[in-house]
């Protein structure tokens, strides 16, 4: 490996220096400094094609893992029906669920193994789903959209749940009553606005969303948008003073209050 690296021509293309300069001008948030190893790799990355491939491959592998976990179970759906496919998808993500009209939950054991008892209920639809901490994303939601009777969904602490995921939840608009989004690292207010389509929602948990800039204000706005829903989230006072960046404008006129 090292030998082949040495054989590589060191890159000297202008383009790469451009990129480096460009980065300095644009990066805004100083992220936590990467580890020594990562920094070393990145240094190599700038000079050797091999390392670039390796790093690119690592990133690809990571997204491939998420994608594989969220594939659409079309084959299962065709052969065993939508409910079984949804149930199988949930269990393989290490989530748990409850069929409508039953009281016990199906969940995998600590090692991710589960029994196939759920196969006995091909006609029962799923009423409650707990997917907290799983790698579900907006693609995986395809496996669940058939569950028109879904009343409760928890995606607490799911790293791949983002605003695009929330924007697809409208498919449960007629049934979903309880939604737990707490501790999801990717959710922003842009996605929460899409929850307006969940007209039956009664309980919503939006606590500890790290990317919300003014959680208190968002809490108030959510309550206003979903008047029949109990919203659990930040204290109202938290981050009420907001730092809305003013829009860049060509000509800024003096603000004048006017009433017609």
């Amino acid at each position, binding site marked *: 490996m090292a030998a082949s690296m040495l054989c590589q021509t060191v890159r000297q293309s202008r383009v790469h220096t451009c990129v480096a300069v460009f980065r300095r001008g644009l*990066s805004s948030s100083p992220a936590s400094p990467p580890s020594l190893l990562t920094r070393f790799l990145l240094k190599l990355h700038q000079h050797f094609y091999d390392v670039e491939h390796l790093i690119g491959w690592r990133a690809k592998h990571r997204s491939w893992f998420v994608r594989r976990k969220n594939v659409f179970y079309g084959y299962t759906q065709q052969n065993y029906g939508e409910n079984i496919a949804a149930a199988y998808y949930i269990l393989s993500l290490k989530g748990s669920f409850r069929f409508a009209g039953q009281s016990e939950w199906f969940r995998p054991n600590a090692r991710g193994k589960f029994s196939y008892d759920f196969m006995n209920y091909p006609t029962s639809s799923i009423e409650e789903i707990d997917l907290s901490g799983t790698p579900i994303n907006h693609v995986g939601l395809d496996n669940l959209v058939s569950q028109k009777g879904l009343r409760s969904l928890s995606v607490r602490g799911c790293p791949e749940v983002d605003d695009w995921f929330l924007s697809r939840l409208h498919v449960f608009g007629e049934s979903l009553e309880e939604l737990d989004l707490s501790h999801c690292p990717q959710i922003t207010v842009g996605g929460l606005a899409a929850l307006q389509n969940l007209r039956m929602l009664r309980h919503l948990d939006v606590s500890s969303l790290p990317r919300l800039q003014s959680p208190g204000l968002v809490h108030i706005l959510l309550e206003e948008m979903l008047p029949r829903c109990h919203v659990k989230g930040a204290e109202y006072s938290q981050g009420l003073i907001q730092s809305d960046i003013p829009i860049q404008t060509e000509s800024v006129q003096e603000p004048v209050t006017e009433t017609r």
Partner: protein
Amino acid sequence: MAARQKLLSTVSACRALNIPSRRVCHGCINTHALRSFTTSKSARHDFFKDLESQIKVFREKAAAAMPGSDWNPIDLTPGLPPERADIVIVGGGVVGWSIAYWLKRKERMRDAVRVLVVEKDPTYSQASTVLSAGGIRQQFSLQENILLSMASADFMRNINEHLGVVNEDPVDLQFNHSGYLFLASEDVAHIMEENYETQRSVGAKVTLFSPSQLKERFPWISTDGVALASYGLENEGWFDPWTLLNAFRRKAMSMGVYQCIGEVTGFKYSMHSARTMDGDKVPIKRINRVNVRMPNSLEYQPVECALVVNAAGANSGKVAGMIGVGTGHNQSFADIPVPVEPRKRYIYVLHCPDGPGLDTPFLIDYSGVYFRREGLGGNYIAGMSPEEAEEPDTSNLEVDHDFFQEKVWPLLAHRVPAFESLKVSSAWAGYYDYNTFDQNGILGLHPLVSNMYFATGFSGHGLQQSPAVGRAIAELILDGGYQTIDLSALDFRRIYCQEPMLERNIV
């Protein structure tokens, strides 16, 4: 330099007071000498305080007057463009950079195609991209437009797989999933219904509301005059255009696209003539070189190239004119110009603390007025296209505030009574890349210039279509035809055959 003079006069004042002037030198004070001053303590204090502020002003002025201090947040390598490129893209707006990205993305080998993007204004002060409202919707009537927007939404959903760069912050478009809400009056409700059918048939998630359902969903709307409303459930909303533009550029440059700051001022071409079916002779041109003029100089650099992509937005008609398209002398084929011209559109930023909340969609009323939320602090942006006969002058980007007072505000307040009282906190204007023929994108090769591709004329929906348009043009160039979405209906043929592809608008 006034500050400097003032400083000198202070020094001469010192002389008058019999203070040895060598003790006061420009910018530095001899502290040792200070002790021998005889003036009272407070006076001395004032004097130096004043001096210090004078020096500060002087320093600022000097810095501003220095050559090359025109500070630029984006550090670009200065210099001339390469002498040769395979593909030259004219215009570094979102469309241009998207094409550049897709060309690199689709090339089979590293550095198989040498792509150069020529942009005349690195600050993008007049580019439509950064002056747009940033909206994306699937509520169109033409299947091509719906598909383009859906493909672009799909791109944005996976934007970090496309535009993420190793060791850089992930791209955050700040996408607001708030949907578009179109309102139709009695006269146009049937068109809305037909459009809805088309949209559903290609897979867009749209729903219809009756006036009473509308009132229930959005209590702040006055449903007066509304017969039907359609609302997008998925993939609709708005995002930050700057972020998308920068992300495309960052990624494309990391993949080896060359950027050059300069203006395309002309082309060198060769010509041969062909005959139309009627036997008319038409000249067919082929571009060999693109002339690029460097900023602030008269220096030209010809760039030898195989293909040119015209993505100059509102200016693309002018760029096409440089090669003589539309300036033929007789009434013939060659006379038809590229029907794209700049049209000025205003956007007003409104502040209304009692206005609609987080559920505010991008609302488009049948009267033509539109608005959306901006941030969370009770701010909105609104606008409207003027009547054809009242198109404003396009020589500058000044905002007409009377237009808001007379045309926009009454309609806004009629639709949302809370807007009766609001203040306009600012406003801006931008140029639509307006296609005067049928207000839709023009994609593909020009029939009379055998190596110039066009991607222009989007008239108000180019931003949202840019990711898919980039892919489409890259397919045309590298694969020889559309692979994913068939957009052949948007090529030049319709202009020459006089068959407009009009959107069936409800506005």
